[in-house]
């Protein structure tokens, strides 16, 4: 049976948690295939993912998480999936909550749904630097692109077919959570935020160390400030 949804998990050295994520996603969302994009992990991430029923492709980790997600988008495009969801490999995005996002996209006319950590009463408590950088990026996106997104840096994003095609066909597209948002907005896609509660991390450490947090903030802010005016072909709905 042809499945409709592609759930993409970018993983690097996550063999402790990846099996759990894959099993839970398969259980909760029936008509979905799971794609794990592995960055040539040193541990058994690939074996564990395959054994639990995920499809695996490998993308060199030097292209970062952006490269992995782009590979996932290209996979979804070539294999004709109608929806593309990206979740984290550490199990912090609950598949049960992703169903809410899928409902939102099916009922509404939104093309792009963001699983936002800040809309409802969340368990998510970021540290000060992280919170500040998210706030700053949100404010800049609001100022320069006239779109109010509370959680710009959420890794949980859902695209419909039109948006998958739009991203996959643009060979100069470089994925980052924030850039995906404003590129899609500029191109005329409709973006919606849905509350997503985060589960606490069970294994491993976040890639978001203090240095990485600064680099991430710097990269995104440079990106936001130097990009306009952007020339993006508008998408016809």
């Amino acid at each position, binding site marked *: 049976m042809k499945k409709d949804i592609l759930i993409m998990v970018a993983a690097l050295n996550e063999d402790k948690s990846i099996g759990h994520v894959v099993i839970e996603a398969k259980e909760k969302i029936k008509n979905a295939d799971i794609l794990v*994009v592995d960055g040539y992990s040193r541990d058994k991430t*690939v074996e564990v993912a*395959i*054994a*639990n*029923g*995920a*499809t*695996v*492709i*490998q*993308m*060199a980790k030097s*292209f970062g998480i952006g*490269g992995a997600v*782009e*590979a996932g988008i*290209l*996979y979804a495009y*070539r294999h004709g999936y109608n929806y593309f969801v990206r979740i984290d490999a550490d199990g912090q995005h609950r598949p049960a909550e992703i169903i809410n996002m899928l409902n939102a996209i099916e009922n509404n006319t939104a093309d792009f749904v963001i699983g936002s950590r800040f809309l409802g009463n969340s368990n998510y408590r970021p540290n000060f630097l992280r919170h500040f950088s998210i706030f700053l990026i949100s404010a800049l996106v609001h100022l320069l692109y006239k779109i109010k997104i509370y959680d710009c840096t959420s890794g949980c994003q859902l695209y419909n077919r039109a948006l998958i095609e739009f991203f996959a066909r643009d*060979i*100069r597209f*470089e994925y980052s959570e924030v850039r995906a948002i404003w590129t899609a907005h500029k191109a005329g896609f409709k973006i919606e935020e849905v509350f997503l509660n985060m589960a606490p991390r069970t294994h491993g450490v976040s890639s978001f160390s203090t240095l990485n947090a600064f680099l991430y903030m710097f990269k995104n802010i440079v990106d936001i400030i130097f990009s306009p005016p952007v020339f993006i072909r508008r998408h016809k709905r």
Partner: protein
Amino acid sequence: MMSLPARLISIIVGLVMLIIISYLIRRRQIYNIYAFTWLSFSAFLLLIGFFSPIVEFISYVIGVDFTPVAILVLIIGGMFSILLHLSIIVSGQHQELKRLEKEISLFNVFKPK
């Protein structure tokens, strides 16, 4: 006015650079469009060797009284443009490599058992 030795050195260095670059292009060790900035740099050295008043004119325009400093400024500017060109090339190649890596990753799909 530039002294004769300075003009000779400038001409010789420009010619040597021109020869090396054209040799590398012929041996396909530099892809020709990437050699563009290098060739313009050697052309610039030859230009100031043959028509040295141009250097005085440039130093007058940029407001440097001591002509050798103007030459240094111009050479540093040339270096910067070469570096900038290299950065553009590297970024383009990064993009191209990523595109290829994505295509290759789609060839090796490990299906679940």
